[in-house]
């Protein structure tokens, strides 16, 4: 019982960051139909920005977070304008491969600049965990969970309450019609990619201090983000949030009660099952596939 409680708490903390990763990707994937292989590298980038600001510039942890998020936003915008905008109208495989090229080049760039040795980022939270009965959780992770929740709410409001969000949703439904209605589709794409990227960078910036920072850290994160997006349905923010928690739950329980060797397999098995029985994801909203 105690073990189960601990697993559930772990799931909450892990699920929050998975959700953050997932919504960034689901926006890009859903609205732009781009299989975005740079998502993981933006996660890595956010973590390194955090490292630079905290350790090399010596600034405060809480100053570093927004800096990393804005840097992710900028890098996302640059990637969209230089690599994706010229290829608008090319098919999904071509843009995917360009993103793969960017991923390979940028990851090797990170290795070149910062080396392969993992970096650790200091945080201002106490080392001793918060203990409630049989359950214990570190303060840093609690902070990460709340920060993630805040960012998720912000992103949700942005999409659902603002004019930009409305235009994004219109573009998702039908980009041609949206263009006819006077939506600047180019601008929407750039904004979408930048926002998605900044969320990935935010996830990296939050998790960098929890884990360690190294050039390949984004690869596993990216695969999980893809899984979450598919579980939740393309372009579906609520789905991505729930998908993030489902994946975290599956991993925790899989490792806790099945076999830790198959921990990562759990998420993939769920995806296979979901797609066999409900091919448009658990929370499909739109019919558009592919």
């Amino acid at each position: 019982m105690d073990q189960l409680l601990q697993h559930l708490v772990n799931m909450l903390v892990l699920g929050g960051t998975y959700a953050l990763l997932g919504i960034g990707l689901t926006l890009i994937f859903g609205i732009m139909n781009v299989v975005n292989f740079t998502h993981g590298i933006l996660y890595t980038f956010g973590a390194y920005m955090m490292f630079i600001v905290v350790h090399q510039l010596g600034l405060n942890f809480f100053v570093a977070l927004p800096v990393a998020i804005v840097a992710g936003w900028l890098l996302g915008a640059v990637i969209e304008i230089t690599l994706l905008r010229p290829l608008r109208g090319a098919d999904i495989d071509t843009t995917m491969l360009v993103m793969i090229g960017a991923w390979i080049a940028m990851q090797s760039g990170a290795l070149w600049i910062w080396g392969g040795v993992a970096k650790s980022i200091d945080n201002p939270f106490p080392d001793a965990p918060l203990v409630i009965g049989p359950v214990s959780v570190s303060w840093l992770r609690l902070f990460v969970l709340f920060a993630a929740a805040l960012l998720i709410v912000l992103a949700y409001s942005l999409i659902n309450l603002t004019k930009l969000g409305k235009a994004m949703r219109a573009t998702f439904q039908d980009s041609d019609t949206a263009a006819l209605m006077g939506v600047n589709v180019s601008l929407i794409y750039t904004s979408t990619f930048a926002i998605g990227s900044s969320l990935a960078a935010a996830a990296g910036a939050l998790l960098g201090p929890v884990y360690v920072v190294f050039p390949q850290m984004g690869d596993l994160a990216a695969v999980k983000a893809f899984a979450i997006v598919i579980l939740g349905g393309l372009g579906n923010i609520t789905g991505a949030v729930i998908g993030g928690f489902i994946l975290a739950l599956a991993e925790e329980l899989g490792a806790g009660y099945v076999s830790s060797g198959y921990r990562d397999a759990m998420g993939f098995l769920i995806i296979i099952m979901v797609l066999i029985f409900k091919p448009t994801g658990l929370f499909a909203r739109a019919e558009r596939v592919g």
Partner: protein
Amino acid sequence: MIRTIKAASATALAIAFLSSAATAQTIKIGVNEPLTGAFAASGTYVVNGAKIAADEINAKGGLLGKKIELVIEDNKSNPTEAAAVAEKLITRDKTPVMLGAWGSSLTLAVMPKLVEYETAMVVETSSASKITTSGNPYVFRISPPSFVEAAAFKNIVDKLALKKVDFLVINNDWGRGTAEDFSKMMKEKGITIGLIETMDQSAQDMSAQLAKIKATDSETVIITAAVDQLTLIFKQAAALGLKKRIITTGGSQNPDQIIAQAGAAANDTMHLTTFLPWMPEKTPNPEATTYFINEWKKRGFDFAGCTESFRGYDGIRTIAAAIEKAGKAEPAAIKDALWKIDVKGLNGDIIFKKSGPAGQESGQSFPNVYLVEISGGKIVMKDL
């Protein structure tokens, strides 16, 4: 674009050929290490250690009147590439002996090439027992496979009064091998083996495994992982309030980095290691250890890298001793000479003993194994 690259590379190839002809006055040693990909950090450490040894030897006048030249190639943490690199080093660079290839699967992929070209390789890090038991007479290993480590640990176990242990190991040949060999040894000692949990090589969150271990009635956890994962495990174990004795194995654990990054979480953990850079006076070759550590610091490398890089240093010194003994830089002679050397390595005497099927034995050296403890943020030798 492509045409330019091809043209450029053709020129570069030509230059490479010319320069290899011009520098025939050096003795080449091939170094096959992962410099990009998953193991980039470790491979780079080993290469830096190897460079220190080469520079030291060259500063003292080189070998057989010639300078040593390290031909360093990146195997991209990929077995196919490791085999290709071996092919290049042997056939194109004509290196008569090699050092490599860090990970076990990388080394195993190189091994058929060694037989094909009858060229020896000194294995500095890989721990899979298969490397020296599958009948490849061109392999000489200076790192301890897990059964050697387990045998060394056997003498210590009684003093630690272990009753029941859980394992948390990295899911590769190294972790699996450790769990297998250590639990076999411990069972013989009457110690109960509890859980054997694994984690993926790239995993960052081990909370689930740790929560499971937290719930068992064992008092000790044996952990095998590289330093980055260890750091995370300590942090996450502390966050979960896991209060069990932790013993790490494998010799790559790098207590300094653990102290620096895991802080208080690392206190009271014990580490089986093969090298003691913190107390050079207690190593088998204090003079060389001091030299190596000073040089390492002088070059501005992370002190934490010592526990990985010393293998590169020892590896090159082993090879150099063999070349010296052989009297010529030829593959067959070097291979024979490797059997005859006795080098005072940083972690013990490097003397190769026969291992594997008769007639085609591989060489295995048996380094010292130490148990250290982190206490109050300092590393202390555990008196045994």
